[in-house]
């Protein structure tokens, strides 16, 4: 393989539910070598686990499979490779579904690689017996408190197995819970022959991944000076032009909307950032304070100078567990005295639940009056006499049937409560399960990934 002197990596999906227009436009409207897809949030794994329990063939990002039928013909023609953490809790099922989708679109000669081994749910008891503590990273709580309620447990794996799949000739690589930046770092290691203990380069690739993992949040989306951003409907998704030395340019295709300048890229560098000198990934620690950033022409930002260090001996694990139920009802309440009316309505609903024999303790009651500056509580003056508010009344509890009584007793306040209450639509609210989030660590030696590459 001759080494390329530049690699173009674009992120086509920043989350499960991102715009379905983006992938096709990225491959048709400019140069791309690798197209990445970031589907997995903490809650996503738990949803996928439930889908798989109902149907063992499911448990992956079905949207991704639908997209493959549409974009792979063009990707094959142009030599664009695809890397996605779309496998969820069932990468093998995802592979079979892609195979079927490609057959339907008549595409041949494509190799699909899958990375497995991130799903440790089946081995959890053994791992605990072996000495893994899985203490909650935020609270320090012991895993024993929730062990019988865990619904998913996935390790954030790194770039290594993805590189292996690329080496084995995969055109499409599907992983389970690979860390978001690793899907961008992997092709750089593969194409530029970077050593995985060259930590400055690992950090550079990781920061490239961090910048593009949320799609257009680095090209002018969610930006303070949004009025300066042209044509947001047509916003360009980000493309990284990476150099073999680890420096790179953030850009987007010609003719797209949005804005790339030092400020739009800096905003994304800071997004969900913790301690900046020690950004932890499975592949390295990256130092965000080392970043040199400069404008490099219109809608081009150049980044260099990134320093990194050795990765920690542990991987992060994301677990989800069943944490009871919640219900939320909403009504619009008009003034005068909208706030006072909302408190009366809340009181009525909980009293009526009592008449059904259902007592909701004070700490499990929820009332948020949207329109009283509640999102900016303490940051701006509160709004004492709004003409209209959205009452968001809810409750927490273990038994969904009891909570559902709130769904039944909310609409009757329109005819039995104060005047000017409206906006009841969409039928009775119902209780939903609360997915608890349990972040933890695992010794890297206890995680065994595997790579399989097959013809589609």
């Amino acid at each position, binding site marked *: 393989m001759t080494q390329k002197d530049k690699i173009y990596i674009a992120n086509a999906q920043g989350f499960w539910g991102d715009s379905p227009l983006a992938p096709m436009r990225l491959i048709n409207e400019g140069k791309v070598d690798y197209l990445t897809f970031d589907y997995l949030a903490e809650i996503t794994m738990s949803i996928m686990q439930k889908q798989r329990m109902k149907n063992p063939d499911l448990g992956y990002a079905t949207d991704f499979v639908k997209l493959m039928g549409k974009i792979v013909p063009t990707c094959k023609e142009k030599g664009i490779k695809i890397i996605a953490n779309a496998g969820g809790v069932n990468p093998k099922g995802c592979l079979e579904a892609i195979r079927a989708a490609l057959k339907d679109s008549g595409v041949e000669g494509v190799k699909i690689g899958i990375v497995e081994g991130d799903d440790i749910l089946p081995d959890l008891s053994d791992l605990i017996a072996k000495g893994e503590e899985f203490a909650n990273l935020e609270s320090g709580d012991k895993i024993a408190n929730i062990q019988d309620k865990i619904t998913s447990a996935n390790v954030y794996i790194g770039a290594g197995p993805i590189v292996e799949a690329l080496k084995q000739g995969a055109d499409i690589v599907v992983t389970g819970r690979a860390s978001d930046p690793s899907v961008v770092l992997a092709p750089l290691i593969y194409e530029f022959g970077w050593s995985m203990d060259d930590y400055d380069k690992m950090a550079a690739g990781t920061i490239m991944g961090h910048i593009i993992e949320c799609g257009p949040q680095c090209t002018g989306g969610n*930006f303070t000076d949004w009025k300066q951003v042209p044509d947001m409907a047509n916003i360009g998704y980000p493309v990284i032009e990476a150099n073999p030395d680890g420096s790179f340019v953030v850009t987007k295709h010609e003719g797209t909307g949005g804005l790339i300048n030092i400020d739009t890229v800096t905003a994304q560098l800071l997004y969900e950032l913790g301690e*900046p000198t020690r950004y932890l990934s499975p592949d390295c620690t990256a130092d965000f304070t080392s970043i040199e950033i400069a404008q490099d022409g219109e809608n081009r930002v150049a980044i260099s100078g990134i320093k990194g260090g050795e990765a920690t001996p542990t991987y992060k694990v994301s677990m989800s567990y069943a944490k009871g139920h919640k219900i939320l009802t909403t009504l619009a309440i008009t003034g005068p005295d909208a706030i006072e009316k909302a408190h009366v309505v809340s009181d009525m609903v909980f009293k009526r639940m009592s008449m059904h024999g259902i007592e909701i303790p004070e700490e499990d009651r929820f009332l948020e009056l949207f329109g009283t500056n509640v999102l900016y509580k303490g940051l701006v003056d509160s709004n004492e006499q709004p003409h209209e508010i959205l009452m968001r009344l809810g409750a927490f509890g273990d038994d969904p049937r009891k909570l559902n009584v709130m769904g039944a007793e909310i609409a009757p306040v329109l005819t039995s409560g104060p005047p000017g209450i409206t906006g009841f639509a969409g039928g009775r609210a119902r209780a939903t399960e609360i997915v608890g989030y349990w972040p933890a660590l695992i010794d890297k030696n206890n995680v065994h990934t595997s790579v399989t590459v097959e013809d589609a």
Partner: protein
Amino acid sequence: MAIVELREIAMARSGDKGDGTNIGVTARSHALYEFLADKLTAAVVKEQFKEICKGDITRHELPKLRSLNFLLENSLAGGGTETLIMDAQGKAHGPGLLHMKIDVPDNLLP
């Protein structure tokens, strides 16, 4: 000196980190970064967020990016998947901070 809203001299983006949030604040010039590094302390931000953030606030500095990163612990009433609050990811924490009034020397104003 002139009293302005923070958004006149800085930009911000926020997001969730478990039951906490982070707010990245970027000054509109290097001189304003020095000014904010001096004035916009963790204690000042905690005072702003005392009704939203129930935990500690720590601050990290990124001078090359003209930016300060604030970590707000226990600021989402239970966290993204568990809470019923409208802003479950703390997306409004950055824009909210930008409403803060701050006294800025005239020569630093953009």
